[in-house]
C-alpha cells in the first residue's frame, strides 16, 4: 500500500520531468517553412509568464509571415542552457541569433564566439552588461520610462487640471524596471501640481500583494480621498480592482485605474468598466528584430544600437476587441 503510493508519486515526478524536457527541443515544424529565407535561432528565457509565452508565439508567427526559419530554444530560466543554445546555433550556422538574456552579465565569451563566426546577435526585451557593445548588433526593448510617462500623461489629460490624490503600486523593490516606471509616471503627471502621489508601496508585481496593499491604502486614507491608482503592472491592478470592489468602491469611476503591460485580463476589466487605461508592453519584440536583420543581410544597413518598441495606450473603447485578439496569444 505504502510502496504503491511511493511508486505512483515517483512516476508522477518522472512524468513532470520528461514533460519539461520536451519544451527545450527546438521548433521542428518551423524548419520546414520557406527554405529560401533566413534561418534565425532564438534563445528564449522560458515560459514563466503569459507575456513570455506570447513573445515566443509572436516570434513564430512573425517569422512565418516573413518566410524566416525560426529555431526556438527554451532555457528554463538557466543561463547555462542559453549559452548552450547560442553555441548550438553557431554550430548549425544560422544567419542570426535572437537572445532574450535571463541575466545581464556573463555573455562576453559566447557572444564573442558568435561575433567570430560572423553571426549577428540581436537582444530582445532585456539588455546586457558588457564593455564591448560590438558583441551584439542591436537590441529591441520597450522604453520603460516612456511607459510610465504615457500612463502619467493619460491621467493628467483625463483630470484636466482637477486635483487628484494618487496611490501607487510599485513592482518588486530593486528592479530597474520599477525605478523607470515610477520616474516616467512622475514625469507624466508633472506640471501644474494638481496631481500628487500620496502613498506608494510595493505589491511585488503579484495580484495577491496588489490586492493586500490596495486594501491597506483604502483603510489608511480618508474615505473617498483616493482619486486614482497607478500600478506598475496589470496583475497588481487586477488585485487592486478586487480590493476596491470588496471595499464597496467602484474601480474605474470612484477611483481611476491606470497600469502597464496590456495583459488580456486588464482588457477584460476595461471592457467591464473596472479599469481605465493600460500601456502595452508589446510582446512583439521579434518583429522589429526580423526587419532590421533582413535589411542588414540584404544591403548591410546597420540598425541603431537600441530600438524601442512603441508604448501604446489602450482605452476601454477598444478593450473588448483587444481582449479577443489577445486571449489566445497569452
Amino acid at each position, binding site marked *: 500500500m*505504502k*510502496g504503491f*503510493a*511511493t511508486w505512483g*508519486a515517483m512516476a508522477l*515526478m518522472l512524468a*513532470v520531468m520528461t*514533460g*519539461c524536457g520536451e519544451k527545450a527541443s527546438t521548433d521542428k515544424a518551423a524548419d520546414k517553412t520557406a527554405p529560401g529565407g533566413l534561418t534565425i535561432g532564438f534563445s528564449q528565457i522560458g*515560459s*514563466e*509568464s*503569459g507575456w*513570455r*509565452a506570447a513573445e515566443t508565439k509572436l516570434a513564430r508567427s512573425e517569422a512565418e509571415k516573413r518566410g524566416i526559419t525560426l529555431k526556438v530554444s527554451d532555457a528554463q530560466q538557466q543561463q547555462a542552457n542559453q549559452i548552450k543554445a547560442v553555441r548550438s546555433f553557431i554550430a548549425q550556422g544560422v544567419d542570426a541569433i535572437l537572445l532574450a538574456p535571463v541575466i545581464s552579465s556573463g555573455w562576453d565569451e559566447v557572444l564573442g564566439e558568435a561575433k567570430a563566426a560572423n553571426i549577428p546577435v540581436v537582444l530582445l526585451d532585456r539588455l546586457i552588461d558588457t564593455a564591448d557593445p560590438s558583441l551584439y548588433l542591436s537590441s529591441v526593448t520597450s522604453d520603460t520610462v516612456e511607459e510610465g510617462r504615457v500612463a502619467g500623461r493619460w491621467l493628467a489629460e483625463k483630470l484636466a487640471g482637477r486635483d487628484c490624490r494618487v496611490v501607487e503600486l*510599485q513592482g518588486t*523593490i530593486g528592479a530597474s524596471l520599477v525605478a523607470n516606471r515610477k520616474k516616467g509616471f512622475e514625469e507624466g503627471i508633472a506640471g501644474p501640481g494638481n496631481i500628487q502621489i500620496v*502613498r*506608494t*508601496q*510595493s505589491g*511585488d*508585481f*503579484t*495580484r*495577491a*500583494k496588489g*490586492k*493586500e*496593499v490596495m*486594501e*491597506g491604502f483604502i*483603510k*489608511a486614507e480618508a474615505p473617498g480621498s483616493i482619486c486614482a491608482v497607478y500600478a506598475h503592472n496589470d*496583475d497588481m491592478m*487586477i*488585485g487592486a480592482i*478586487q480590493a476596491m470592489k*470588496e471595499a*464597496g468602491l467602484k474601480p474605474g469611476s470612484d477611483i481611476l485605474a491606470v497600469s502597464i503591460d496590456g*495583459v488580456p*485580463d486588464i482588457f477584460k476589466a476595461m471592457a467591464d468598466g473596472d479599469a481605465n487605461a493600460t500601456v502595452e508592453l508589446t510582446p512583439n519584440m521579434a518583429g522589429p528584430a526580423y526587419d532590421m536583420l533582413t535589411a542588414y543581410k540584404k544591403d548591410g544597413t546597420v540598425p541603431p544600437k537600441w530600438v524601442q518598441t512603441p508604448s501604446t495606450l489602450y482605452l476601454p473603447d477598444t478593450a473588448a476587441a483587444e481582449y479577443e485578439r489577445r486571449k489566445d496569444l*497569452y
Partner: protein
Amino acid sequence: MNTPAWFAAARSRLLLLAIVLLANVLVAPGFLEVRLVDGRLFGGIIDILNRGAPVMLLAVGMAPVIATRGIDLSVGAVMAIAGAVAAATVNAGHAWPVAILAALGTGLACGLWNGVLVTIFRMQPIVATLILMVAGRGIAQMITQGRVLTFTDAGLAGVSSASLLGLPLPVLLALAAAIGTGLLVRGTALGLFIESVGTSPRAARLAGVPAPALLIGVYVWSGLMAALAGLIATADIRGADANNAGLWLELDAILAVVIGGTSLYGGRFSIGLSVLGALILQGMRTCILRSGLPPELNLLLMAVVVALVLVVQSPACGPVLARMTARLTRRGTA
C-alpha cells in the same frame, strides 16, 4: 487543568500581539473599530484575521510537523499546486465543489509524498520537502501554463469572499482548522505521541508509539492545510498564480510556529500559540504596509521586528518578561 502554566506561555504572545495592534492603532487611528456593513464585519482586526488566514492554516499544519523534529518547506508550493488544480478544474467546466475536492485531494497527495520520503526512504525532512518546494512550482506552472489562470466561478471565489455570521470565510476556515486540529491532537493521544516522537524517537519507538504512521500523518495534514490555504489565496485574486501563490509563505509559517514557542528540535508544540504567532506576523505586516513609510524599508522593518520578537521570547529574556507582565497584570487587576 494547569491554567496558570498555559497562561504563562500564552501571556508573552498575547502581549506581543497587543503591542502589534497598538502599533497599528498609531498608524491608523480607526484601526480597532469594527463596523457591521451588509451583515459583514469590517475593521482592522478583521483584516488581519482575513489576510493572516493562509499563514494561520499553514502554521496549524506546520506545528505538528516541527514537533516531530521535521519541517515542511513545500507548503508554499503546495498552495500554488492546489490553487492551480482548483482553477483548472472550474475552467474545465466542473462545478466548484469538485474543484475544491480536487485541490484538497492534491494537497493530501503532496503531503503523502513528503511523508513517504521522510518515513519510508528516511530522507531528512528539510531535503525531502525541498524536492516538492522546487518541483511543486514547476508542476503548478505546467497546470497554469505560465499564465495567471483567471476564473469567474462565483462558488470558488466564495472561498475567499463569502462570509458567515459576519466573518469572512477564510477567517472561519482558519479558526475551524485550528480548533479542529487542536481538539484532534489534544482530545486524542496524537499530541502525546507527536511530542514523544519529536523529543526522543528511540524512546517513543520502544514504548510502542507507532512512529511511521504518525510521521506520514503529520505531513499529510500539513499538505491538506496548505491546499486549503492555496484555495483561499487563489479565490482571493480569482486566479491561480503559479509563480507567486504562497511564495515564501513556508518561511512565515515556520516563523509563526517558532514564535508560538515550538523548538525546531521538536517536542512540545501548541496549535493555539502557533496561530497567535501567525497573527502577530500578519499584524506586523499590515502595520508596515499601512504606515506610509517608503516600501524600501519593508523587509528591513520586518526583519528588525521579527528579531526583536525572538529576542524577547528567548530563554534569556523569559524571566524578565514574566516579571514585567506579572506586574502589568497585577496593576491591571488592582
